[in-house]
């Protein structure tokens, strides 16, 4: 253990991270402590800052595609989706319907994989070792399915301007349907293992309550916001792609504690499966990629595109100058705003509760640091 630095009478500073297991990546939180109580938690960012925004404005827009998957490596396809949609909006490129359906199916599969990884890791933070073995078993099925068409297991670069790079086949459809069926059977196991576990409830109920006003002041989005009872989801609120064609609900919590955020994600898995099923049922025939110019010229002017990633609203903001290279590319990532409320939320709480809150936020550090 680190030697704590004594500040005043029994007040000291403690470094949590950058290698702490429950920060899920290289995140440092400097804690001002008094005994077991946290007085002031201050996150220190930037350990894996790679300046994706500079890379975005120093190469043609098509060469930035692989970068998008390397920000949020847990749920990379929505990052692909946001970027291709941004360029398509800017350059006025039409996308075939079948390609949009494939995008939605793969994005939702990726969202389920992300929530499963979060579930396992969160429970590991809270001291429950067993669930991660089950969630990784389920997640492995999704990774296999996605690998079969995208060619990668994590950092996908599958979408292209005007479509996707490869059509899905019957094997993919069959495997996806089998997964949906299997996943639904697993809910009972998770409920027994986790949701009704008294230790889990004690560690999450009434811990880290985010009020709707606080969420608004910090610009929180995603399941962290919906846990506080605000039904905001970019897929419904600002519909993009073919999401308006599917029926699904936005699960919301009541009071915004860690348990609510947990429940929202668990219920979102079912909603994602519903979208996947409907999309597979109605999958249209046709091409998966439209003809686009090799050098896409980005006309002068700015353009914004927002999508719902697994952790919340992801916005790309682009400034074109008439060339194929963006003049400016801003990436607004959800975890960045979500984590920024920690100094206020974590004041005066017990250290184990801080671990619970951090876990419930579902942070991905490479996304925050960019």
């Amino acid at each position, binding site marked *: 253990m680190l030697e704590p630095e004594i500040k005043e009478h029994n007040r000291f500073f403690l470094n949590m991270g950058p290698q702490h297991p429950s920060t899920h990546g290289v995140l440092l939180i400097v804690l001002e402590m008094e005994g077991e109580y946290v007085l002031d938690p201050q996150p220190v960012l930037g350990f894996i*800052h790679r300046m994706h925004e500079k890379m975005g404005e120093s190469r043609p827009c098509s060469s930035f595609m692989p970068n998008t998957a390397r920000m949020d490596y847990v749920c990379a396809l929505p990052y692909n989706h946001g970027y291709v949609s941004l360029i398509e*909006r800017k350059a006025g490129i039409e996308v075939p319907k079948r390609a949009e359906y494939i995008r939605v199916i793969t994005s939702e599969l990726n969202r389920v994989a992300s929530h499963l990884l979060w579930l396992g890791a969160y429970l590991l933070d809270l001291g429950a070792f067993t669930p991660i073995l089950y969630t990784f078993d389920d997640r492995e099925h999704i990774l296999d399915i996605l690998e079969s068409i995208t060619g990668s297991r994590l950092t996908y670069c599958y979408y292209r301007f005007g479509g996707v790079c490869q059509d899905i086949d019957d094997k993919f459809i069959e495997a996806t349907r089998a997964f949906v069926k299997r996943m639904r059977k697993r809910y009972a196991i998770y409920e027994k293992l986790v949701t009704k576990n008294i230790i889990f409830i004690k560690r999450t109920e009434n811990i880290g309550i985010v009020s709707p006003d606080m969420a*608004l*002041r910090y610009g929180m989005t995603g399941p962290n916001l919906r846990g506080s009872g605000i039904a905001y989801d970019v897929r419904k609120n600002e*519909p993009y792609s073919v999401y308006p064609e599917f029926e699904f609900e936005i699960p919301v919590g009541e009071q915004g504690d860690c348990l609510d955020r947990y429940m929202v994600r668990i219920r979102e898995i079912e909603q994602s499966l519903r979208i996947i099923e409907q999309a597979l049922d109605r999958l249209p025939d046709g091409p998966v990629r439209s003809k686009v110019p090799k050098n896409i010229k980005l006309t002068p002017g700015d353009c914004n595109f927002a999508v719902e990633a697994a952790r919340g609203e992801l916005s790309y903001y682009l400034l074109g100058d008439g060339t194929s290279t963006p003049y400016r590319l801003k990436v607004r990532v959800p975890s960045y705003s979500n984590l920024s409320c920690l100094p206020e939320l974590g004041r005066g709480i017990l250290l184990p509760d801080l671990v619970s809150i951090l876990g419930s936020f579902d942070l991905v550090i490479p996304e925050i640091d960019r």
Partner: protein
Amino acid sequence: MVKDTKDYKEDFLNQGFDATETAYDQRGYHLEVVLNVNQVRKFAQTAYELGFYLVFVTGFHVRPDEGHDTGNSGLEVVYQFARYDQPYRIKACVSVPNSLEVPSISDIYQGANWHERETRDFYGVVFGGHPNLNPLLLAEEDADFHPLLKEETNLKSLHEVSWPSEAPEVAKEGAEDETGR
């Protein structure tokens, strides 16, 4: 599917802001507001009272205008706000004066704290009244290094990166198949 939408243009015009409706299909936001430095805090306060949340704060670097006595620095700060209850996105931008100082809105929107620190990291814009402007994403020793400032040769003027005032045209030239890649 899409809920009832309210147009907030009047609310901002009544408060004396230069607000223009934009084509959402092309730009991805509904309202564009051009602010001067003194209006930033009032604008943020108005947006907060109307129930908007802060999406991001960032900047960009263009060639400064010539021939102005006051002179701007060539830096622009961009704010984006949106709503939880209906699709409505606002882009607000402000030209940074030569002093590089723009008032901070981090006491109105606490979430702006990190976004403003990041903008100072990348561009060197100083947000007056900000509680802590130390480097956030960059290393502490890089406090005077601003990676997103462009070199003189790469700079474009503001109108070269803005939408033309007449109806924007869609780029469609040399449709060539890319599937071979």
